[in-house]
C-alpha cells in the first residue's frame, strides 16, 4: 500500500539487533553440568552468527514477504504443466491435526493405525486410478517418481538377464526431469522428435528401436496438451523390442476417471499429488510422486509397502527383490493425506468431474483466444492449451516473455512460457477445474487487450510489469556475479 520508492524490504540479517529474543525457553530443570565436562573442547562451538529478532519483528518481516507473493488464493494462476488448482481448506485443517502432524514415523505400527490406513487406502486408490496393479507412495516429487520408475525398469531388465539395455527414449517435448532422471539412473537417453501433429514421430521412433532400449518415457497428455493417440501402438512397439513404457503422469488432471495409463499399455507411471490431487505447491514444494506399476514390476518396489493383516495395517519391509530404499520413510505423508481427502471428497461418483472441468476450461480458453493469439495446434486440447507469440514477435517485436509480464499488471499470474521448446514463443495455459467461467472471461479479455496493445501500444507491453513490487528483473546479473548468501557489508577501513 505504500510508495514503492520508499520500500526497503530488509533482510532478516539487516533487521537483527544484538540481544533480541524471539522465544522464551524454559530454564533447565535438571542438574546442569559444565559443557566442558560433556563435550570435547574441539567440538564446542565458539560463535553462532544467527540473526536476533523479537517475535513481532519475525512476524512482520515474513508477513511483508508474503504480501509480495502471488498465489492461487489471490488470483488466477494458469501456469501450464503445474496444475495450479485451488487447495481446499479442509485438507489444510486436517494436516494440522496433531495425530498426523506430531506423529513420529518410527512408532510401532500399532500406534499409527490411522496413518497406515491412509497409506494403505491411497496405494489402492492410486493403483485403481492408474489402471495398474500396485503403487509405491514413497517418491517425494515427480522427478523422484521418475527415478524410481526407471530403477524399477532397470531392476526388471536385470532380473530378466537384460542388463545390457542401456537407453531410455525420451520425446523432445518431454519435461527436463525425464532425461535427467534417466541419467541419474545410469541410462543414456535418446531423443525422438515430435511430428507435425505434436505427437511422437512414429517413423522416427521405429527407426531407433533396438535391443539396447530399456524403455520409453512419455507424458500423456503430452506437454503440448495433446493426447498421444498412437499410444497403443507406441506401447506395442516398445514392448515388441523388449522395453517397458513409463508414463509421466504430471498431466493426469486431464484424465482422472476418464482414461487410465494402465489401460493404454503403460507399465509404470508417477502421479504428482501436488498437481492432480491438490496438495499445495508451497512456493516450490513439498511434492509427492507416487509410482504405480503393472504386476511385472511389483516385485521390485522399494521398501516398505503398507499391507493389511489380521491385526491391522502394517509396514512390510520384506520385499526380496526390492530395489531398496529411496526415501527415509514412507514418502510425503502429509501430502498423501491431503490428496486422500481430496479424492474422498469427490469419490468414485464425481472424480471425473475434475478432468471434465479442467479440459472444458482449457478448450474454452482455446476457442475464445484463437482469433487473438495463434494456437499451436488447432484441435481439441486436453487440460492445457498452447499458444505461440511467434507472429507477435516477428511483426511487433513482442515476445512471449513480454506478454507474460504484462499479464501481471492485470492481476494474473503468467502462463508457462518457452516450454515446451518445440513451440516457438510458447504460452502454455492451464486453467484447472477450480476456475469459473467468469474468471476465464476476464482473463480472456485481458489477453485480448494485450493482443491489441501489441499492435497499438507495444511499449506498454514491453516495459511491463508496471505494478509489481519490483520491476522486470535482471536474471543475467544474478548468474554473472552469483550472490546466493547474504554477508555483512565489509566494514569500511
Amino acid at each position, binding site marked *: 500500500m505504500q510508495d514503492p520508492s520508499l520500500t526497503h524490504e530488509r533482510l532478516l540479517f539487516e533487521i537483527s539487533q544484538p540481544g533480541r529474543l524471539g522465544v522464551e525457553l524454559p530454564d533447565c530443570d535438571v542438574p546442569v553440568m559444565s559443557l566442558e565436562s560433556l563435550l570435547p573442547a574441539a567440538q564446542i562451538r565458539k560463535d553462532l552468527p544467527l540473526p536476533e529478532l523479537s517475535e513481532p519483528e519475525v512476524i512482520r518481516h515474513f508477513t511483508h514477504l508474503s504480501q509480495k507473493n502471488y*498465489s492461487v488464493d489471490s488470483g488466477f494462476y494458469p501456469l501450464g504443466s503445474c496444475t495450479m488448482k485451488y487447495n481446499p481448506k479442509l485438507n489444510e485443517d486436517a494436516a494440522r491435526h496433531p495425530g498426523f502432524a506430531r506423529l513420529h514415523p518410527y512408532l510401532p505400527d500399532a500406534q499409527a493405525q490411522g496413518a497406515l490406513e491412509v497409506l494403505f487406502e491411497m496405494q489402492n486408490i492410486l493403483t485403481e486410478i492408474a489402471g495398474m496393479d500396485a503403487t509405491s507412495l514413497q517418491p517425494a516429487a515427480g522427478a523422484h517418481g521418475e527415478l524410481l520408475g526407471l530403477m524399477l525398469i532397470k531392476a526388471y531388465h536385470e532380473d530378466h538377464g537384460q542388463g545390457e539395455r542401456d537407453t531410455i527414449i525420451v520425446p523432445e517435448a518431454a519435461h527436463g526431469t525425464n532425461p535427467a532422471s534417466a541419467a541419474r539412473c545410469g541410462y543414456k537417453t535418446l531423443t525422438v522428435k515430435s511430428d507435425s501433429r505434436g505427437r511422437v514421430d512414429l517413423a522416427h521412433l521405429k527407426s531407433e528401436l533396438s535391443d539396447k532400449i530399456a524403455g520409453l518415457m512419455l507424458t500423456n497428455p503430452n506437454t503440448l496438451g495433446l493426447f498421444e493417440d498412437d499410444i497403443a501402438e507406441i506401447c506395442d512397439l516398445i514392448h515388441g523390442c523388449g522395453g517397458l513404457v513409463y508414463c509421466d503422469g504430471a498431466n493426469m488432471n486431464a484424465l482422472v476417471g476418464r482414461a487410465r495409463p494402465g489401460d493404454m499399455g503403460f507399465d509404470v507411471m508417477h502421479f504428482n499429488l501436488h498437481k492432480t490431487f491438490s496438495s499445495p505447491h508451497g512456493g516450490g514444494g513439498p511434492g509427492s510422486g507416487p509410482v504405480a506399476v503393472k504386476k511385472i514390476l511389483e516385485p521390485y518396489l522399494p521398501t516398505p509397502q503398507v499391507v493389511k493383516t489380521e491385526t491391522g495395517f502394517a509396514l512390510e519391509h520384506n520385499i526380496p527383490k526390492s530395489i531398496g530404499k529411496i526415501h527415509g*520413510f514412507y514418502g510425503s505423508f*502429509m501430502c498423501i493425506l491431503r490428496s486422500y481427502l481430496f479424492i474422498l471428497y469427490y469419490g468414485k461418483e464425481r472424480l471425473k468431474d475434475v478432468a471434465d472441468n479442467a479440459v472444458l476450461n482449457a478448450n474454452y480458453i482455446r476457442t475464445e483466444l484463437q482469433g487473438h493469439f495463434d494456437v499451436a495446434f488447432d484441435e481439441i486440447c486436453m487440460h492445457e492449451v498452447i499458444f505461440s507469440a511467434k507472429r507477435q514477435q516477428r511483426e511487433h517485436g513482442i515476445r512471449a516473455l513480454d506478454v507474460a509480464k504484462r499479464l501481471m499488471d492485470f492481476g494474473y499470474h503468467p502462463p508457462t512460457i518457452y516450454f515446451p521448446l518445440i513451440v516457438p514463443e510458447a504460452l502454455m495455459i492451464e486453467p484447472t477445474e477450480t476456475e469459473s467461467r467468469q474468471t476465464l472471461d476476464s482473463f480472456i479479455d485481458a489477453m485480448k487487450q494485450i493482443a491489441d496493445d501489441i499492435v497499438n501500444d507495444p511499449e506498454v507491453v514491453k516495459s511491463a510489469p508496471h505494478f509489481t513490487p519490483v520491476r522486470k528483473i535482471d536474471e543475467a546479473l544474478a548468474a554473472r556475479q552469483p550472490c546466493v548468501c547474504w554477508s555483512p557489508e565489509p566494514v569500511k577501513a
Partner: protein
Amino acid sequence: MAYIPNTDQDRQAMLEAIGLNSLDDLYTPIPEALRFTGELNIPSRYNQIALEKHYKTLGNKNASAEEYPCFLGAGIYDHYVPPTVGAITGRSEFYTSYTPYQPEVSQGVLQSIFEFQTLTCELMGMDVANASMYDGATALAEAAIMACELAGRKHLLVPDTINPIYRDVLETYVRHMNLTVDTLVTENGLTSVESVKAAITSETGAVLLQQPNFFGAIEDVQAISAAAHEGGALFVTCVDPISLGLLTPPGEYDADIVVAEGQALGCPMGYGGPLLGLFACKTKYLRRIPGRIVGETKDGDGKRAFVMTLRTREQDIRRERATSNICTNVALYALAGAVYLATMGKQGLKQVAELSLQKAHYAATEIAKIPGYSLSFPDAPYFKEFVVQTPGDAGKLNEHLMSKGLIGGYALGGHYSGMKNAMLLCVTEQRTKAEIDALVAALREFEGNS
C-alpha cells in the same frame, strides 16, 4: 461441487462456445477403446462433515507426541516449534504459490529462500547453500554423487555410524550411478580415524560422516576430515542442525559438502514426510550443486531483488547433463526453517541445544543407575541421543512404555545385529524432568528387568 465453480449452465454455455455437444465430446482425441467408461473402484464420496469426522477419527488412532511424551528420535525429532512458524507457513500467499519462475510476482518466496540459504550457511559455517532437497537421506546421496564426480573417483567410504536408512537410500542411489559404497564397521559407537585411514584408497571419492552420529555420539570430525583430505577424498558430513547450536560447525573442520535433515527446524514430524533436506558446500563447488538456488540481483529500477539463478545446472535447461534430476523441492519447509531460525535466533538455538544436551545427560545418568540397564557406549561423548542396553527385547520394552503413556526409543536390533536389546533414546528440550523421571520409573518396572 464446492471446489468446482462452474455449474451445469456454465458448462452448457462453454460447450456451445467451443462447438461441442457434451463433455464426452472433449475426449474425442482419446481413441475410444482407451477411454474409461466404468466406475472407479474407489470409495464413495464424503460430504464435508463426514470427511472432517473421518480425518479426526484417523488422526486420533495415532499416538501423537502431543499426547505422549516422546523419547523417540533417530533422525526425526520432537523439538519445540514456536507459534510463528505455523502463523507464517499458514499464509496462503506462501503455500498456494508455485515455484517462483516469475520473479516479479514471487519476491516473497524468493527472499525467504535466499534467507534460508544464508541461515543454512551461518548455521553450518559454509559458503553457499541451495534452496533445499527432499530430505536428509536423498541430500546425502546427492552429496555423495556430487563428491565422486568432483573427485573423479568411484568409491564412497561410509562408516556404519551413519543412519542406516540413509545408508540404504545412498546405496540405492549410487548403485545406479555405478558408484560403490565401502561400509566401515565401527566399534564403541564411534568412527576411529585409524580405521578411516586404513580403509581409504586412491579410488575413494569421499568419506561420509554423520555428526552427531546415529548413536548420538560425537565423532572426531577434525581428524577424520583431515584423513579424508589426505587421502585425496572429499569430506561430506551429515549433521543435526539443532546440534549446531552448540557444536563446531562443519565449515570449521573443512567439510566440503554438508547436508542435514532439517525437519527439527520447525517442520512437523508428519509421519516422516515431507522433510527438509539442507545442502551446503564450499564456494568453489557452487556450479555443481544439485537443485535450485536463489541469488540476489536488481530490478529495472536498480532495486535489490531475488531470482532463481545458475539455472543452467538444472534439468529443465541442461536435461540429461543436469547436476541432478530434482525439480520440486520443499520450499515451504525451507520457509518453516527460516522462520524457525529467525525466531529462535542466536540465543534460542543455543538454548535448545543446551537444554537437549543437559536433559539427555540427566536421563542417561539416571537410566544407567537402573539395575539391568547400561549405556552401550559409556566412553563416547553424546549430544541428545544415547544407546541403552536394556534387559529385554526393545520392542517389548516399547510396548511396556506405551502402556505407561510414554513413547519409547528406537530399537537398534533391526539394523545392528549385535545390538538386539539396545535402544536409542532421545531427549529434547521439550521433555521435562518429570517426564524423564517417569521414563526412568517405567524402565525400572519393565518385566524384562530381572
